[in-house]
């Protein structure tokens, strides 16, 4: 009896020690992560706030004076506003198109056992697998031939191309995840094809649809290669502007401002997605199967 008790104590102590270790490790990782992500961002914020009249140079650890001067300069003189406008009109257009294009395809890939399915699924991945610069450079020859280069509609097509794989993949999984029973039940209760699409398929793939849209949206906002080759100089997006500040025109303060302008909406989006992924009712409601 005594021995058992002692053994139990050992066991409890061991478990407690393990839990404490895990907590410590978690805290450690969080700290590392805060440094890992936070420091770079913090430094960028500092650089973007350097006062134009008080350079931040070695050996100063911190800038002498902070001001909004760099932000004002960027907004006043660079094409940032035009680029913001282009980026944020381009992205919704590309998302809309890729949604329309991916819906029928994802339906077939998700719900039909067609011959050659694996092949088609590989094709869908091509825009992700293929190196961006190669596609951009030589697609630009094709676009040139059809008057799509340096053209807004051409850019929308290019961005749609890059968003499609994410959209199709996510939607395909959503379509796959719908239990056949549910569709049969709807049909059994009298639903026709139209009702099935409107009341069953669309609402049930909605979580996937939103996720796909967010993926396609951020892909479009980030897209550099195709925009750079096909769109610039007529159309500047935020990445191409940033590239010009990072390349031969490397001006750290201006680049910081543009980097932040590009980054902040994305991080906000990340938290939106986080929340949304938690309320994934599709898997929740079918969890008892």
């Amino acid at each position, binding site marked *: 009896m005594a021995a058992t008790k002692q053994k139990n104590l050992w066991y409890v102590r061991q478990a407690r020690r393990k839990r404490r270790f895990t907590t410590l490790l*978690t805290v450690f*990782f*969080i700290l590392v*992560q*805060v440094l*890992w*992500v936070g420091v*770079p961002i913090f*430094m960028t914020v500092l*650089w973007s706030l350097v006062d134009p009249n008080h350079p931040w140079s070695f*050996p100063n*650890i911190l800038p002498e004076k902070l001001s909004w001067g760099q932000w004002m300069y960027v907004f006043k003189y660079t094409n940032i506003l035009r680029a913001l406008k282009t980026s944020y009109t381009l992205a919704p257009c590309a998302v809309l198109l890729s949604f*329309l*294009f*991916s819906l*029928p*395809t994802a339906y*077939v*890939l998700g719900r039909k*056992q*067609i*011959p050659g399915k694996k092949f*088609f699924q590989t*094709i869908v991945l091509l*825009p*992700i*697998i*293929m*190196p961006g*610069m*190669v*596609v951009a*450079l*030589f697609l630009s*020859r*094709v676009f040139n031939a059809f008057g799509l280069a340096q053209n807004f509609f051409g850019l929308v097509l*290019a961005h749609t*191309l890059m968003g*499609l*794989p994410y959209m199709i993949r996510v939607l395909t999984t959503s379509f*796959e995840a719908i239990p056949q029973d549910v569709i049969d039940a709807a049909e059994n209760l009298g639903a026709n094809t139209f009702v099935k699409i409107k009341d069953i398929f669309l609402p049930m793939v909605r979580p996937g649809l939103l996720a796909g849209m967010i993926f396609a949206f951020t892909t479009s906002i*980030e897209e*550099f*290669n195709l925009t750079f*080759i096909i769109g610039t100089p007529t159309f500047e997006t935020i*990445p191409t502007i*940033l*590239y010009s500040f*990072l*390349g031969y025109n490397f001006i750290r303060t201006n*680049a910081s401002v543009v*980097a932040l302008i*590009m*980054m902040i909406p*994305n*991080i906000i*989006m*990340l*938290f939106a997605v*986080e929340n949304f992924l938690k309320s994934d009712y599709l898997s929740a409601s079918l969890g008892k199967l």
Partner: protein
Amino acid sequence: MERKNVSSIDYLLLIPGVGFILLFIGSSIFITITQSFGVLSVTGKSQFTIENWKAIFHDKESLDSILFSLKIGLLSSVGTLLFAFPVALFLRKGGSGKRFLASLIKIPLFIPALVAAFLIINLISYHGIVNEALLALGIIKKPLRMLNDKFGWGVVAIQVWKNLPFVLLILSSSLASIRDDTIDAARNLGAGTFSVLFRIYVPLAMPGILVSMILMFIKAFGDFAIMSVAGPTYPPSIALRMRNTATLFQEWDKAAVLGVIIILTTLFITWLYSRLAEFVTGRK
């Protein structure tokens, strides 16, 4: 899965998505290939020739670029994996702290590659915070020159930083599919931490490991933006060289050869992966 018969309408429905991708990617690959042989050349006369291919293979600069890109691709994929795998293991079982950690880790996923490059450039510059911290801790006596370094560590660092969450997501989902029973069974049969790690976790997560490594490799190998911002003075990455050859020197045919090389390498690696995946999962 519907057990109903397949109709030709299904193939029609594939056109908007698959057809669209096939049209655009296919045509660009087609142009790359034809142009590399001087056919359908946009810069002037169109005549079949293999001179461009010969030229590239006799050009040490191009070979240097290819080797450099291969090296960066390999180091980036291995590096990211080494960082991501332990974290993925640690995060396999959630607690509230870990959930918070997981969303922190995801942040770089939403930071565009160019911005990531810029963030890291700031850090690793000569008197950047990394060097200053190392100096303050007395680890080094003189600051390290990491920016645009000849080896390419700066590029690898950026790739790791930017893609860690991406790889983490893939690894997490393949680790999540390992049932606790399996682990318990292994422990019950006498496996220690080490054995559980290398005999259970690693083999079972192998498909995920392979996928993430391959995607990382492809990303880093064909990268233009990060290389052009943080890469060394020489050699330029192959994508960078290709772009310069085409748009700076207007030698589109030679650029096309480089393009075909990039595509072939990418396809070869992807094929290799699918074979490996078959081998690992034992499916034929």
